[in-house]
């Protein structure tokens, strides 16, 4: 077992809206090692995104502990969460979430604006190169195809060299071919040492991961290694 990067102990999440309490996560326990490629699966509404938001420091648990690299982050405030998000994680969303009317370059640079890291220009170009979009670097985000947009989003997620990359349904809005390309990049990133946490409800997509946690109604129902691992990295792909 590699060194644990994430430890979750009895993690619960309730949403409270005007006295109405919605219980979403019921006491989850698991650990994630550095360099893992984990897929979180489950039907719609089961709490996958909620869990990913907590793991990605976008939200805090109602109770229980979330320990990241040995630090208990369960009770971090807004600004501390923002700082750790900036330093430790990158996000890829289903809906890309690029800044409109803004170039690929500026989009990828965005997380660096809020970090202490120097040498922005090289980092941005490096990240864009690793998703194979250098030829699009000065295009505006709305001039790109869906697949290209998601690759820009991946470049943005890795520009700060984070420990963990979270991807919530990254192929959900893409056709099969573009989806394959995106999964190929995630695999490649995993091969170069990044920890990847992927949320999906497609078995096919989840098969790219090394390990799958299945959630139903806020409970973990299975946590297994993938036996028939699929790969989109069959030799010569678009990454040349």
């Amino acid at each position: 077992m590699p060194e644990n990067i994430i430890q979750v102990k009895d993690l619960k999440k309730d949403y409270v809206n005007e006295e109405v309490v919605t219980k979403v996560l019921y006491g989850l326990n698991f650990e994630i090692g550095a360099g893992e490629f984990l897929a979180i699966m489950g039907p719609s509404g089961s709490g996958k995104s909620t869990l990913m938001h907590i793991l990605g420091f976008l939200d805090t648990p109602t109770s229980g502990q979330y320990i990241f690299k040995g630090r208990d982050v369960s009770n971090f405030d807004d600004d501390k969460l923002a700082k750790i998000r900036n330093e430790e994680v990158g996000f890829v969303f289903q809906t890309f979430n690029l800044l409109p009317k803004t170039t690929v370059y500026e989009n990828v640079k965005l997380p660096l604006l809020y970090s202490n890291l120097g040498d922005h220009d090289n980092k941005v170009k490096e990240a864009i190169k690793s998703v194979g979009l250098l030829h699009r670097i000065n295009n505006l985000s709305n001039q790109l195809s869906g697949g290209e947009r998601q690759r820009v989003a991946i470049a943005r997620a890795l520009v700060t060299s984070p420990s963990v990359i979270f991807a919530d349904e990254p192929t959900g809005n893409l056709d099969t071919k573009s989806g394959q390309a995106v999964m190929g990049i995630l695999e490649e990133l995993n091969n170069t040492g990044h920890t990847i946490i992927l949320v999906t409800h497609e078995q096919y997509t989840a098969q790219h991961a090394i390990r799958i946690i299945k959630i139903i109604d806020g409970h973990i129902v299975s946590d297994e290694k993938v036996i028939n691992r699929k790969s989109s990295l069959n030799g010569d792909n678009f990454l040349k």
Partner: protein
Amino acid sequence: MTILDGLKLSFSVLRTNKIRSFLTSLGIIIGIAAVIIIMSVGAGAQSLIINQLNSVGTNLVGVLPGASDEEGPPASVFGIVVTTLKYEDAVAIKKQVDNVVAVSSYNSGVGTINYQNNSVDINFSGVMSDYLGVEDTEVYLGRFFTEEEDRGSAREVVLGYQVYQDLFGSDNPLGKRVKIKKESFEVIGVMKERGTAGFQNQDDLVLMPVSTAQKIMLGLDYVNYIRVKINNTENIDRATEDIKFLLRDRHDIRIDGTDDFSVRNTKDAIDTLLTVTNALKFFLAAIAGISLIVGGVGVMNIMLAAVSERVREVGLRKAVGARRFHIMIQFVLETMAITLIGGIIGVVLGFLVAAIVAATANYLGYKWDFVISFTSIILGTGVAAVIGLVFGLYPAQKAAKLDPIEALRYE
């Protein structure tokens, strides 16, 4: 995020929304322009007044009948006739006060002057032979009265240039007889063309010896006022004191008594006028300043709308690590950029209008200075920036508090 990043970001947002940014800052543009116009046109109007006062003559000291405290006007202004100021006082000032170059007393009245079939409404003044020295002017034709004629009640007049033109056209007026209020006078001279000075047209005046005006025309033995020309600006204060001392003595006023005259110099008059007009100017500018607050509220309104329009953008920025402070800075800078640009446009616009006003006034023959003060430029742009800061804070705070998850889910 450096300030430079923030500024770049602000300007790129403004550039993509040019028309909206312009409309947003319109209130600021108008408000700042209004303040600048009022300050600059106000200063121009002040210069007009001062130039007019100076055109009466510099280094002048005036003696008016009736007491006055330091700030208030003398009694004569309120129509109270004080009869103790005399021709002899003027003569004594000339003889006994140091640094005095020329002195003239003044008596004035109105009437109609006739020559053959021509008649013109005029102001006439009884003055002394020193008049030319006091007023810094010359005769155009003929001669002025002599010192001997001051007391001689000679039936002689010197015509203002306009009066001469109206009555005689191109004829020679010298030696001709004219009538004022049925009294007959010989024209001995014509004054040089002078234009307006001290808000009075000097060219429709008819001048006569002081005794002539007092005895023949007006039937009185006191003067309306005395003007004294001093040789040098530095000596004005001393001469003013000397004149007071002399007149107290001549009028038998004791140490604790109240003066029956007041001595004023142009410098004091200008100071008093400046105090009053400055107050007026700043009062008007303050009213115009209120429109800036209205403009600021308008900017805040638009920025609130911009925040709700850009919820997703803010959510994304927070998701990738922007802290509240970063978002605050971004929106405050953006608001300040709008108001600052508005302020700069307002300053330029304001001075443009003020320049047009000044040019028009000068074209119409007024001595109106175009005043462009560094303080109002700094103040105008500074105020605009502060407005951006003040009215940008609330929208920025709203943006900074957005929850990234909610914001990203927002459609």
